């Protein structure tokens, strides 16, 4: 199982190699980062294949057994997240070649990109709470720097807001780790989950869970804590907005909280309905608030940022429903949202690159001039809205099925109706930017940008058409991995006893 540490080590290695390569020959840098992203994608596919047979792979770093050493616990949910991360990183790296050609010192971008990849991969495959914190901080630090990459006033301002919010979350997370360590004397996630069962339903149990959720909901930009995102996404360079919107908030906030809720604290719909209702409430709040506010936005990227928050609400809704179909829907939604929102932000980058502005009142007539971008936008938007053959539809469908099976008919109806919100605000962009006739000097997007966008379009369509395969082999096992609950810790330790 030697491939597991490679997910972290390869991007880390290339991150350190890039500053040296950047001194020698600059184009090599882009090649290296794209190649590494591609290798990661291949490894992730291999990892998915492995996770079909072994539902939990535990890798001991430096051969130190748990709970003494740090372990990597790679189950189907990790395999799924690794796959999604590698796809988005590859597309962003591809897209960045021409987009960043106007920036000075643009090879530094790839160092940060690779560091962020290493951090995100680390978060999803680690089996150790403190290790998760370290990777979270690595990824978060590089994302702060990437938001400020252009060094314009707005970008620095957005980056500062992001640092303030992100660091509050990080420090609360660290404080919670200290509390958990004081109570359980261990940092291994599996060990913690065993130990916490003796403290179930005490004040300590709910307080630590609350603090962790607070930290993660800042990172995921759920509605009361969303303000940083609205500045960070529009200000950042487009490939980074795409990466942040597509995958960062999901990994920093959604993956971590899902793992903590289901596998570590061992909560389930059957035992703690109140808590899961709270999650549903939080999800609905995000969907409605951000969805409605998006209508008044006139900035291409800011509108997409609001849409992102609203979509994250759907993911939380799926987890809150808490039965198999709800969780499966939420997991498919992570995939759908990563591909679609990643694509939409890439189109915004292509618009900025060609037309020089993101104000949708000033843009017009781009539909004819930039047909690839326009059609990419349309496909991505249709997937976000939930058009049948595309993946976004199936994600929403499973959430609605889950809601009906759990007996929440009103949530099923609300989820269906609220999808129409996204139709409304995305039509604003379509009408103003692409459909409206107007003179435009914009040139079509450069080749590599189009390749990145078309790649995501193809994936959205393919994954949507072949959704049954995805559910059977990737998303379904991932949902089962989450719903296994406390089995997680048994599996980690059983693997450990089997291998000896």
């Amino acid at each position, binding site marked *: 199982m030697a491939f597991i540490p490679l997910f972290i080590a390869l991007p880390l290695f290339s991150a350190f190699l890039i500053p040296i390569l950047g001194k020698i020959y600059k184009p090599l840098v882009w090649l290296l980062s794209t190649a590494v992203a591609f290798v990661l994608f291949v490894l992730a596919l291999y990892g998915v294949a492995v996770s079909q047979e072994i539902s939990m792979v535990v890798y001991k770093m430096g051969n130190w057994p748990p709970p003494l050493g740090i372990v990597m616990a790679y189950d189907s949910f990790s395999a799924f997240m690794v796959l999604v991360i590698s796809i988005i990183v590859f597309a962003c790296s591809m897209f960045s070649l021409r987009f960043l050609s106007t920036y000075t010192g643009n090879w530094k971008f790839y160092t940060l990109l690779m560091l962020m990849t290493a951090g995100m991969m680390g978060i999803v495959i680690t089996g150790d709470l*403190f290790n998760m*914190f*370290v990777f979270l*901080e690595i990824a978060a*630090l590089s994302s*702060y*720097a990437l938001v*400020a990459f252009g*060094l*314009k*006033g*707005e970008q*620095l*301002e*957005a*980056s*500062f807001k992001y*640092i*303030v919010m992100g*660091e*509050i979350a*990080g*420090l609360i997370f*660290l*404080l919670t*780790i*200290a509390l958990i*360590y*004081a109570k359980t*004397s261990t*940092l291994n996630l599996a060990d913690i989950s065993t130990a916490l069962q003796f403290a179930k339903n005490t004040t300590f149990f709910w307080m630590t869970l609350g603090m962790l959720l607070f930290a993660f909901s800042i990172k995921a930009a759920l509605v009361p804590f969303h*303000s940083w995102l*609205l*500045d960070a996404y*529009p*200000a950042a360079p487009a490939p980074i907005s795409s990466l942040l919107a597509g995958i960062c908030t999901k990994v920093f906030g959604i993956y971590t909280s899902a793992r903590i809720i289901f596998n570590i604290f061992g909560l389930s719909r059957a035992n703690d309905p109140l808590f899961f209702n709270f999650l549903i409430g939080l999800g609905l709040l995000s969907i409605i608030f951000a969805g409605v506010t998006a209508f008044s936005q006139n*900035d291409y990227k*800011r509108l997409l940022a609001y849409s992102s928050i609203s979509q994250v609400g759907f993911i939380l809704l799926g987890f809150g429903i808490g039965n198999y179909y709800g969780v499966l829907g939420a997991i498919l939604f992570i995939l759908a949202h990563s591909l679609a929102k990643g694509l939409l932000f890439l189109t915004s980058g292509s618009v900025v690159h060609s037309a020089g502005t993101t104000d949708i009142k000033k843009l017009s007539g781009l539909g004819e001039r930039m047909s690839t971008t326009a059609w990419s936008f349309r496909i991505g938007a249709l997937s976000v809205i939930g058009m049948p053959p595309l993946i976004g539809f199936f994600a929403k469908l499973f959430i609605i099925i889950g809601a009906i099976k759990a007996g929440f008919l009103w949530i099923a109806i609300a989820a269906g109706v609220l999808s129409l919100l996204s139709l409304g605000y995305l039509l604003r962009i379509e009408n103003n930017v692409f459909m409206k006739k107007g003179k435009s000097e914009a040139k079509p997007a450069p080749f590599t940008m189009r390749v990145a966008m078309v790649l995501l379009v193809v994936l959205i369509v393919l994954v949507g058409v072949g959704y049954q395969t995805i559910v059977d082999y990737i998303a379904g096992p991932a949902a089962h991995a989450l719903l296994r609950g406390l089995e997680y810790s048994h599996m980690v330790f059983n693997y450990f006893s089997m291998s000896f």
Partner: protein
Amino acid sequence: MIVFASCIILFLIGLYAIVTKRNLIKIAIGFVLIEYAVNLFFALVGFKKGALAPIITKLDTPHNFVDPIPQALVLTAIVIGLATTALMLTVILRIYDRYKTFDIAEIKRLKG
């Protein structure tokens, strides 16, 4: 117990600085204070009365040590804190370059 209370007080002072101060540098100092409070709390978690520092100088040293893991973790957390603080200060200096002020009330080019 009084030392744990002092951690909380330090934490609250830092939070106060972040919430009420308008100067960017003072906000950064608030962050450093919060970070110290959390690190101090973490280091205190491993404390045992009358125990030694966990350093093996002879192979037959009696094993009455304080818990070394929180210390190792705090060291890592300090390094991360260093990186964050450095990044934050760099961003603040660049902001000063662009806006010629440290006052957050005057730094609002963004619409949100």
